[in-house]
């Protein structure tokens, strides 16, 4: 498997929406390379015939009655928001129009 380098980390940090400084990228690339190296044996552990397990104790068809349950008031839902306006979350510009 491919090793992880600084450019990979920069790309992943963008995907994960975490700004990283140059030194943070260097340090993270070094640490992640060691971790990725230590987990690579996992890809050799199981053959094609082994099914994947996504859930330890699978339950199927977990439904509830189609009735309105407990809901938050707008005030409750907005109580932890950094910014709100007229009962709605207020966000910075979605698009960069500069």
């Amino acid at each position, binding site marked *: 498997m491919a090793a992880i380098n600084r450019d990979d980390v920069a790309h992943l940090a963008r995907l994960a929406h975490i700004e990283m400084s140059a030194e943070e990228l260097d340090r993270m690339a070094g640490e992640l390379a060691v971790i990725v190296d230590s987990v690579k044996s996992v890809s050799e552990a199981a053959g094609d015939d082994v099914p994947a397990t996504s859930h*330890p104790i699978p339950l199927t068809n*977990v439904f509830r009655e189609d009735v309105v349950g407990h809901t938050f008031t707008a005030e409750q839902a907005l109580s932890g928001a950094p910014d709100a306006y007229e009962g709605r979350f207020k966000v910075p510009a*979605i698009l960069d129009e500069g």
Partner: protein
Amino acid sequence: MTENNELIRSSAAALAGKLAAREVSAVEVTQAHLDRIAAVDGKVHAFLHVNTDEALAVAAEVDAIRAAGGAAAEELHALAGVPIAVKDLIVTIGQPTTAGSKILEGWHSPYDATVIKRLRAAKMPILGKTNLDEFAMGSSTEHSAFGPTHNPWDLDRIPGGSGGGSAAAVAAFEAPLALGTDTGGSIRQPGAVTGTVGVKPTYGGVSRYGAIAMASSLDQIGPVSRTVLDSALLHQVIGGHDPHDSTSLPDPLEDLVAAASTGNVRGMKIGIIKELHGEGYQAGVENRFNESLELLKGAGAEIVEVSCPNFKYALGAYYLIMPSEASSNLAKFDGVRYGLRVLPEDGPMTIERVMGATRAAGFGDEVKRRIILGTYALSAGYYDAYYGSAQKVRTLIQRDFDAAFAKADVLISPTAPTTAFKLGEKLNDPLAMYLNDVATIPANMAGVPGLSLPGGLADEDGLPVGVQLLAPARQDARLYRVGAVLESLLEAQWGGPLLDKAPSLTDAAVSSHGGSH
């Protein structure tokens, strides 16, 4: 002071008995624990928030109901008035919930977790919220944004993690009970290094509704206590089906308290997992583990050896699955709906850039590492090799457990490979930190329940060693049965609870740099 000392050192079961007999009031019990927190938490730092007023109000309500008598008094839960601490990953109305992260500093949840609702229904006063590694990511509490918790056995050492605050609170007699969460060992490993009891129930056995998710297919809330019986009592309060959690098991809860009171293990088969002891385990850990085996054998259990050859892949697979799920779960911290918002210092003020600046400032290093690792493992081109392979390993681990439980009723191993290490010792070596969970992770991967109880003190450093019991899924009762028997045999040898040997934290001789090991 002597009287208070007796109250804080009592088990939850003993306190429940004294409260029911009205030998002591719930307010006295709660106040004794609040006083203890005031006296020692400056050194231990188990709590991020102390809930004085509400805890005393709930205690006073219990006392009033008992004093009035009648049906309401008779209907009180057995643990009514017995106080409890709650890991700060579990949301609570009326107290902040931080998850140990700056991104949630000062945040108040608009709802209670299901387990909190159940504590309130039982009228158990909530003493406060306990410290943890940020978003439960760590094995030492050093990744908490609000400073580490100190091990009551030696304040220079780690209390384990991520639930080091809950374990230390119980070990330092600041609370008789606590709630923890266990994704890869975060209840059991802190229990091991602090000489306390911790249980990870069967996956789905306790509702996760209101536990801030790290890795949803691995996370489980469970009890933290000083005795096996106390964990069983608390497990029965919080366990059972919850329609708010679609992974909650519909099965009725077993009588775990009865299991803890069975009193014998005669004829039970107890399997030593070949791969989970020996090389890589500290000599003192191995010695105490072997003594526990002898005691169980002496009590009539049959000790057999089982092999789980795929456990060697468990740590690696865990460090692919857990970060993958965490990276997805933590995407919700976007600086819009709750928590911190940080604006970029210059350039266009778009939501993308606000999100990037917010998450950069709000998350600590370990959280960032895991988010990046998870994003990597899930990215196109790597998914099959990493996440896909790890899920197959999960199947292999389940098959290993199935084969092992065909030969044994419960399995046994040391809980952690070492005793508590020094604060700072492994902070800059993520891989060394991850190895602490090598014996606890397989249970989370397979969804089976596990219990850690004190096994004694290691010869070389005088620090607590944990013994782990594992049972098949939905057979949590077996853990309590075997755990309670082993606990009573060990305490008979020690002449009392292991925590009697812990240093007094109020002794003037013990400084914050104390410990003479």
